[in-house]
C-alpha cells in the first residue's frame, strides 16, 4: 500500500484530537486521546483552556531570597562559599522541579503556556544567577500569562530577573541603557518594522530608574535615576513612565497581532498565520478574556487543524512527551539517569531557565541537525531501557507483526511511513529496541 501522510485526505476524528493534544500538551498519552475521543473536539478544547485540573503536579518550590545576595556585608569567606553552594542547589531544584511538573501536571496547557512565556520573555539564569528571581518571574508567567497582555507587560517591566537580564538597573536618566526598551519593542510587544530608533531611545528613557534589590527580589523606582521629562514614543508625547510606555505599546493593534503571531508560531506552524485567522484571533482576544480566549479561537479554527506536521518538536517537548507516554517521571529516575537526562537536554540546547538568548528558543528545522540526533539516540536508548514492564506489555501483547502499530498508538503517531515501518519491523522482536527507534524516528520528531 502506498504511503499517504493523510495530509490531503479528510482527517479522521481521532487524528484531529491527537493533533490538538500534541500541540496543546507536552505529548498526550494514548489514554488521553481515548478520553478526548469520548468527549469530542469542542469539549476537549474547552477542557484544555478551562479551569485548572486538580492534579497540579509537584508544588512550586518556595524560595524566599537569594542566599548569596542576602549575606551581610561582613560575611566570612566560608559563609559566602556556603551561600554559593545553596544557590547552586536552588538552581538545580527549580530546574528539576519544572521538568518534573511538565511531565506530571494534569493542566498540560497551563504548563505549555508557562513554557511559551518563558521562551517569549526569554531570560536566562546564566546571567540572572538566582533561582529566587527566576522563580518570581516564573510565577508572573503563571499569574498573568492567560489574561490581559497589558497587565502582563506591566508586571514584566517590574520583573527583577528581566531587569537584570537586560541591564535595566543600569538604565538611568544620566545615561540611558537601551537594552530593555529595544527588546520590549522588538521581541516582546511589537516586532521589527513597527517602531523606529527614536522610539527605542525614548522608550529607554521611560524605563529609567528601576533598581533591583537582589537579595529580596524587590524592585522599585528610584526617582533620582528616573527621567521624568517629556518623551515622544510611537507618535505619542507625554511624560511617560514604564506603565505609560507599556500603554502606548499595547494600545497599538500591532501588539495583539504580534502576540497572536507568536502563539501561532509555537502552537500551529512556522508558516505565517493567514490574515483571516489573525483577524479572528485578535477579535477573540478583545471579545473575551485576553490570551486564553485567543488560544481557544486558535485551537478551534480549521486552519489550525491543517497545520499537522508543520512543527518540529522542541527538545523539551520531545523528551517530556516521551516520558509522559512511557510512564516515566524525572524525579523518580535513578540519580545517574536523571543526570543523563539533564545532560542530554543541555546537549540538545534546551534546559529550562536557560534560553540561548533573549530571542528565545530556536524553531523548526534549526532543531534538526545530525548533532542533535546523536544526543537523541542516547537519550532514547536510556528512556526505552527504563520503561516499566507494564507499559512495555502494551507492545508485547501484540503479535510481532502488529507491534509497530501498537507503538504508533503508544507514542500517538498517526502513521509510520513504509521507511520507518521497515526499520521497526526489523526490530519488533526486541520491543525496547523498537521503542527507542520509534522515539528517534522522523515521524516522532515533528508534530
Amino acid at each position, binding site marked *: 500500500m502506498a504511503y499517504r*501522510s493523510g495530509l490531503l485526505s479528510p482527517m479522521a476524528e481521532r487524528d484531529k484530537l491527537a493533533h490538538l493534544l500534541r500541540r496543546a500538551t507536552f505529548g498526550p498519552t494514548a489514554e488521553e486521546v481515548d478520553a478526548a475521543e469520548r468527549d469530542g473536539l469542542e469539549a476537549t478544547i474547552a477542557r484544555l483552556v478551562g479551569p485548572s485540573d486538580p492534579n497540579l503536579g509537584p508544588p512550586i518550590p518556595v524560595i524566599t531570597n537569594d542566599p548569596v545576595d542576602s549575606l551581610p556585608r561582613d560575611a566570612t569567606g566560608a559563609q559566602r562559599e556556603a551561600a554559593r553552594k545553596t544557590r547552586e542547589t536552588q538552581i538545580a531544584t527549580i530546574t528539576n522541579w519544572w521538568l518534573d511538573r511538565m511531565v506530571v501536571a494534569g493542566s498540560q496547557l497551563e504548563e505549555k503556556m508557562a513554557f511559551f512565556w518563558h521562551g517569549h520573555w526569554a531570560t536566562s539564569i546564566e546571567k540572572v544567577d538566582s533561582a529566587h528571581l527566576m522563580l518570581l518571574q516564573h510565577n508572573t508567567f503563571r499569574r498573568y500569562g492567560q489574561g490581559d497582555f497589558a497587565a502582563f507587560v506591566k508586571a514584566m517591566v517590574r520583573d527583577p530577573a528581566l531587569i537584570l537580564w537586560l541591564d535595566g538597573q543600569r538604565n538611568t536618566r544620566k545615561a*540611558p541603557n537601551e537594552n530593555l526598551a529595544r527588546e520590549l519593542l522588538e521581541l516582546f510587544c511589537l516586532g521589527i518594522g513597527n517602531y523606529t530608533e527614536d522610539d527605542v531611545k525614548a522608550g529607554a528613557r521611560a524605563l529609567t530608574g528601576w533598581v533591583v534589590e537582589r537579595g529580596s527580589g524587590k524592585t522599585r523606582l528610584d526617582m533620582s535615576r528616573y527621567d521624568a521629562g517629556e518623551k515622544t514614543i510611537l507618535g505619542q508625547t507625554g511624560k511617560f513612565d514604564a506603565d505609560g510606555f507599556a500603554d502606548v505599546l499595547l494600545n497599538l493593534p500591532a501588539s495583539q497581532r504580534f502576540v497572536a503571531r507568536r502563539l501561532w508560531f509555537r502552537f500551529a506552524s512556522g508558516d505565517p498565520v493567514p490574515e483571516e485567522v489573525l483577524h479572528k484571533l485578535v477579535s477573540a482576544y478583545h471579545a473575551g478574556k485576553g490570551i486564553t480566549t485567543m488560544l481557544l479561537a486558535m485551537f478551534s479554527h480549521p486552519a489550525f487543524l491543517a497545520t499537522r506536521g508543520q512543527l518540529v518538536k522542541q527538545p523539551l517537548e520531545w523528551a517530556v512527551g516521551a516520558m509522559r507516554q512511557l510512564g516515566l517521571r524525572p524525579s523518580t529516575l535513578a540519580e545517574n539517569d536523571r543526570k543523563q537526562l539533564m545532560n542530554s537536554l543541555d546537549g540538545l540546547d534546551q534546559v529550562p531557565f536557560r534560553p540561548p538568548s533573549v530571542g528565545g528558543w530556536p524553531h523548526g528545522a534549526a532543531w534538526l541537525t545530525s548533532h542533535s540526533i546523536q544526543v537523541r539516540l542516547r537519550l532514547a536508548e536510556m528512556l526505552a531501557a527504563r520503561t516499566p514492564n507494564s507499559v512495555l506489555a502494551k507492545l508485547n501483547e501484540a503479535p510481532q507483526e502488529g507491534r509497530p502499530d501498537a507503538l504508533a498508538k503508544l507514542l500517538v503517531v498517526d502513521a509510520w511511513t513504509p521507511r520507518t515501518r521497515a*526499520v521497526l519491523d526489523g*526490530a519488533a522482536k526486541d520491543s525496547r529496541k523498537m521503542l527507542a527507534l520509534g522515539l528517534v524516528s522522523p515521524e516522532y520528531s515533528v508534530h
Partner: protein
Amino acid sequence: MDFLTRRKFLLASGVTGAGAIAAGVTWLPMKEIMQTAGELTGLAPGVPKILVIVTLYGGNDGLNTVIPYNDPAYAKARPDLAYDEGEVLKLDEVAGLNPALKGMHQAFERKQVAIVRSVGYPKPDRSHFRSMDIWHTGEPERPGNTGWLGRWLDTAGGDPRLAVSFEQVLPPLLAGEASAGAVVGGNGLRLPKTFNMKSISGLGQVVPGEPKLQARAASCFEALAGVDQLIKDVIEDAAERAKAGETQATGTGGQTAIQQQFNLVAQCIEAKVATRVFSVSLGGFDTHADEKQPHQTLLGMLDRAVTGFLDRMSKSEQGKNVVVLVYSEFGRRVKANASDGTDHGTASDVFLLGHGVKGGIYGQPPDLKDLDRGGDLKYTTDFRDVYATVLERVLETDADRVLPKWSGRLPQIV
C-alpha cells in the same frame, strides 16, 4: 541580548529557514570533500583564490578594536573604557590596534592586513538579528532568505563542497536559492548499542509525500553516516602528511573553538581540496556592561587563531592564495553607557588578511564629531563594496550575479 554564542545565534537567525536549507542539503560525507584533494587548480602564486570568512557574533566594538587613540572626542565619550596612546599598537598617526591584537599588528607591519574603515549600510539596524541577517544576505533594504555566498555557490554550480562551514549548523550566509554549503562539525560518531548503521540509514530514506519537516528529520539520519567519516578523514589525512613531514601536526588540547575551526580549514587547504569558501566564527561580543576586559579577551582569542592560521598558511604555496575576511554585524555606540559598556551601534571596520592582500588602511576613519542623530558613527564604505570586491578578486565571479546592480568596489586591495 546576552550570552549569545555563535551556534545559538545561528539557530536564532531568521535566515536559517531558507530555501536550500529547508530542502535539507546540509551535511556531506567528508569522504566526498577529501576526495577532491588536489582538485583545486588554476592557482597562481600568491593570487587570491580561497576565502575564509570570519563572523564575530554580537557586535564587536569597532572603536575599541581600531582605536582613534589621540582623538579627544574618543577619550571624552568613554572615560572608563578608552585606551590611551601608550596602550594601543599604533597603525598610523590616528589609529592603533587593541593591545590584544599583537599578532595582527605584526602582520599589518608585514603589509598583510588591510583594514577598511567605517563599513556599514544605509539606515543601520541595531537589532543583532536583523543586522546579522543583513550582513549574511547582503540585502540591507530587505533581507531575503539567501546568503550572499550561498548565491555565489548557486552561480558556481552548486556543489556544496565548494563552501564549507565547521560550525554546528549552516550559517545563513552559505545558504543559496538552489544549493547550500556543507557543514562539518561535532565529534566522531559513536552509536549507542541499540542502534546500528543499518537502522540509521533506514530512517534516512525520505518518503515522497511526507511533510517537509519530517523529510528534513529523515535527511539528518542520512547525513549522520557521513559525519564521522568527514572528521576522521580530515584528521587522518593531516596525520599522514604530518608523518610524511609535509606539515605540522594538528594542535591538540587547550584550543579555543575558533582555533579548532581554523585548524580544520588549514588541513583542508593543505590537502588542496576543491573548497573555495570556508566559514568560521566567534561569538560572545554582545556585552553591554563592564566590557573592557571581556572584549580584550575575545580579541585575544581571535588574534591567536587568525595569526596562527596565517603563519601556517605562509608555509605552503596554496596557503598564499588565502584571504581571510573578518567582520561583525555592527560596531558600538561612540559614547559609553553608564554601565561601562556600550550599546548597539553602526559602522565599524572590516579586516582582510593574507599573503595576497595589499596591506594598509582603506576608506575614511570614523569622524567622532559627525555622528548621526542616534550618536552613532556614519558609514563611509558600503559593506557591499567589500563583498563585490571579494567576489571578483578572490572568487573570480561576476559580482552582479550575487549583488545585482551594485557598482561600488574597493580600490585594488587584493
